[in-house]
């Protein structure tokens, strides 16, 4: 089943075109990776999907579960089942992780016509899912990301992913800033969240995350477009040859 379809997407920030005609289709259960040099528009794509204000869609369409998500508010997109793990998670002082997730989960459940979770079950779920990414329960009572280390913030993103149970999860450089052990924990956490009805779009610079996650497809983004797509071997090739290989007009760039 088709989950996400992006057609000829062009996005501008402050009048400057950043994404310049991007096409991508993701089906249920698939894991797609997007790689590409700094500044080519990977995070821009992630933000446009999530609905961040300030991004102007100049052309093109994005369909999520058959709906035009460009017409939906960010919170509606999340309720429909879209999740973005931020490249730079934001600190929210004065709001505990537990309260944040309680509010979010209940709003999402309400939207999906599900009963609110009872307090005890919810607490169990919180602890379980935090443990999944190696965060002990003390993090639940801390304010969202406040004073968290870079790695802890990334784990907290995956914890939230686990709580919100999305249909499509977009991971924007979740692996950067993680040490080798943390990478293993987070990757295993993500792996355990893989399901036939859950898809992933993983933005990364490194092969190492993909070693754990094994993507079905790898796309290379360059100057606002996907310039080459392939299987997981493409990531190895890229790692071996570097992006200059693309710039030199080889392969998919014809």
């Amino acid at each position, binding site marked *: 089943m088709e989950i996400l379809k992006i057609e000829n997407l062009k996005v501008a920030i402050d009048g400057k075109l950043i994404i310049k005609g991007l096409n991508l289709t993701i089906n249920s259960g698939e894991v797609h990776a997007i790689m590409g040099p700094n500044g080519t528009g990977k995070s821009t794509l992630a933000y446009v999907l*999530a*609905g*961040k*204000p300030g991004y102007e869609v100049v052309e093109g369409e994005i369909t999520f579960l058959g709906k035009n998500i460009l017409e939906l*508010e*960010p*919170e509606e*997109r*999340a*309720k429909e089942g879209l999740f*973005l793990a*931020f490249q730079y*998670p*934001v*600190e*929210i*002082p*004065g*709001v*505990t992780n*537990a*309260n*944040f997730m*309680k*509010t*979010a989960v209940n*709003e*999402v459940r309400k*939207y999906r016509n599900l009963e609110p979770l009872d*307090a*005890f079950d*919810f*607490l169990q779920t*919180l602890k379980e899912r935090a443990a999944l990414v190696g965060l002990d*329960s*003390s993090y*639940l*009572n801390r*304010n969202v990301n406040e004073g968290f280390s870079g790695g802890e913030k990334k784990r907290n993103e995956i914890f*939230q992913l686990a709580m*919100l149970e999305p249909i499509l999860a977009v991971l924007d450089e979740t692996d950067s800033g993680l040490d080798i052990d943390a990478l293993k924990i987070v990757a295993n956490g993500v792996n355990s969240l893989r399901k036939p009805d859950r898809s992933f779009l993983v933005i990364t610079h490194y092969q190492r995350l993909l070693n754990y996650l094994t993507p079905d497809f790898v796309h290379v983004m360059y100057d606002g477009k996907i310039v080459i797509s392939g299987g997981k071997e493409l990531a190895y090739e890229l790692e071996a040859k570097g992006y200059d290989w693309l710039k030199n007009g080889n392969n998919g760039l014809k």
Partner: protein
Amino acid sequence: MGFIDNVSALFEKKFSKQICRDEDSERLVFFEKFKELGLPTIKNEDWKYTNLAFLNEINFQLSSCTKAIDTGLVEKYLSFLNGNDKIVVPYINNSIDESFVKPLSSFDYKILRNGSFFANTKLISKFSNFFDSSNPFNFLTLAFSTDSAYLNVNNGFENEIPIILFYLYDFEINTLSNTLSFVEVEEDAKINIIAIFINRSRDKVFANEIINFHLKRNSNVEVNILQFNIDNLVLIDNFNFILESGATLKINTFSLNNYFVRNNLNVLFNEPYGTAFLNGIYFTADDEFVDNHTLVLHNQPNCISDENFRGILDGTGRAVFNGKIYVARDAQKTNAYQSNKNLLLSNDARINTRPQLEIYADDVRCTHGATAGYLDQEMLFYIVSRGISKEKAKSLLLNSFVSENLEKVEQPDLRNFVKELVAKKLNLEDIFFCSAIDELTNASL
């Protein structure tokens, strides 16, 4: 008719006929002084952003017959204490209702009826130490003062039981209210005060209340000032504090729903090594006005003052923060901090914030800062990206903006109560209060 004419006529009628009484001649002196200073205008630096001209349009009376208030009502307002012990000093419609007062063992508690304060020379001389003779309303309060409460907290008294200064206004006409209170806290004593202002009148009440605290050596006083649901009340409260060596004062103001409030918070370090924290939260919505006017006088060395006021202004709401810090030449090693932060939720909301520093000592650490801004868009987006509505996301951020000051309340029942009041105001009760999740997470972690 004008406010001055209005109160002159009231004064004439009430006191002038019996001017032979000593106390009434005292009153006359104070009243003349009030007239001399007059109703402050915005040309007066202390009232620059606080226009009182509207008082000229209201015809005030003095309360003649007082409605009977039953104890049940007071209990209802204090139900947030969950029936726990408390000491209540009830200023019901301008007079202290003795029927509420429980016997107090660790206290010397006097009620000075109807002006008998003027006969008490010892108190008068104590009072003069606090007196800000540039504030005309201090004279007005003295001229009209009805009952006064005098509390003396014994040496070393230390108790969690809060002392409630309970101001309830329930008049049937536009009315003036003027009372004086004294709290003398002896050495090493520790007390917790909650001052609550509640208005049930449908007409305007103009209340000028003076509350003086004398903190003797090493005493520790927390004063929480609660102002919510006081429509129609024009309140000018004057909390004056004198601190001796080693004394610690903590003030928390909560101005949550007000017609017109002016909090005058005056702190005087009369001896070295005193500490004072002044914290406040204020919300203003359409047509609401809150003015926090603080004065910290560092007359002695080695004292610390730390002020932190936060405001959320919506609709056509207006607020003023004026924080004056004075450091005398000999007050070396003073630490004085001041911060006032504001969030504006509408284009029509207004805040006037003004730090005033007068520093004559050279070995001083003094910082101040004031901000007025809008909600952080990055934070807002992060929250809504998790499926939380924009309204709720805003509320979470607003709650977070004031949460630090909410946590500063020491008395647990009161802390929960103010947190709940703020949560209700922000429509967040379901998150913070309707489920056992907080207790569960706290208990099981």
